[in-house]
């Protein structure tokens, strides 16, 4: 699928074919997409544990559910539990030097081994590594992980899968997956084949571009060029907005199929 269409087709899928296994290679492709994502100081903050739902004991599965994610957790055959690994800072010094060695960071931009050892590490990175609880540190680690998760999601969509990033009860899964203490739990990426149509009712409402993005300074909207908007529609990046006319009928049918309240 073309990239723009993948972006356009992605939406949170909340009804999965709960009975249908996901091919392991598709999960590998998603993880690879996450691994290749841009990451701060080339340290992979995102860590993840793939769990097949049917291998989760019933009691644990029930304990994982939150008020905003219970049914989706139950329906999705594959769960990817995501974490931020704060220990990732520790290897940052060596990783940056490796970027120098491979010619990604160059003297043209002020980079050298000495610059990493004597400036970047002691002045910038070590203070961050020593203060993982600072809001700014947590925010940058979470941004890093978010980008990687997003690439995994898009790769999943490209493979014809449905994905939904969802909250989970952190303590409940840990007995099973035994994540290290310094990993901060984020969300669970639920994966499976959609039981709803891939359109899932249409592209979700978002504020217009002009309302959230600015040009030059805050308050001066970034004005969308209608011609470009049309191009994105043609490339299926911008798609028919929700609700599609038959969405309520689809939900009724899904409720009946799964035995859910209307």
């Amino acid at each position: 699928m073309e990239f723009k269409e993948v972006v356009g087709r992605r939406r949170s899928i909340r009804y999965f074919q709960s009975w249908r296994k996901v091919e392991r290679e598709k999960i590998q492709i998603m993880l690879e997409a996450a691994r290749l994502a841009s990451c701060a100081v080339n340290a992979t903050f995102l860590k993840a544990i793939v769990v097949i739902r049917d291998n989760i004991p019933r009691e644990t599965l029930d304990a994982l559910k939150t008020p905003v994610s219970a049914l989706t957790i139950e329906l999705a055959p594959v769960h990817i539990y995501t974490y931020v690994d704060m220990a990732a800072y520790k290897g940052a010094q060596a990783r940056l030097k490796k970027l120098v060695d491979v010619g990604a960071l160059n003297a043209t931009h002020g980079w050298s081994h000495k610059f990493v050892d004597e400036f970047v590490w002691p002045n910038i990175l070590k203070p961050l590594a020593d203060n993982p609880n600072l809001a700014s540190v947590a925010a940058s680690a979470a941004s890093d992980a978010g980008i990687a998760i997003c690439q995994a999601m898009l790769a999943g969509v490209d493979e014809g899968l449905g994905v939904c990033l969802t909250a989970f009860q952190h303590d409940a899964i840990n007995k099973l997956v035994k994540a290290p203490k310094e990993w901060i739990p984020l969300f669970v990426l639920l994966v499976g084949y959609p039981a709803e149509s891939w359109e899932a009712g249409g592209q979700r409402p978002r504020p217009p571009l002009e309302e959230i993005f600015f040009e030059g300074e805050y308050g001066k909207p970034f004005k969308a060029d209608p011609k470009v908007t049309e191009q994105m529609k043609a490339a299926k990046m911008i798609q028919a907005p929700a609700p599609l006319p038959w969405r309520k009928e689809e939900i009724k049918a899904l409720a009946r199929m799964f035995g859910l309240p209307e």
Partner: protein
Amino acid sequence: MASIDKPLEEYDSVKIWYQGLREQSGVEPTEDKSRLELLAEFCATLELDPDAIVAACLLRKEGKETKISIKGRRSMAERITDFQAKGGAEGREQAKRGNTIRSFLIHNGILLQSGIQI
């Protein structure tokens, strides 16, 4: 005991339910009579009117925002499970009993999840 002293459709919580079914779920609530019959049966079991059933799931404290009561909700979920089990022998029929009451409470803002019942 909050006894039922008017037609069920006249209770605020039933009006909210019907509105939710029409607007959110695209379902015409009056088409299937069993909906209201099941709610009436549930009310009789609990000896509460519909509004009182919703209220039993909420915590109201003077001067504070109304919150969902964890205890109230949990005990209501158990009552619904019992109510569901008392239905016909067919799994689907039983699920319909429970889900009708869950739908009533969900549209009234009370979180209740039963999971898949197939």
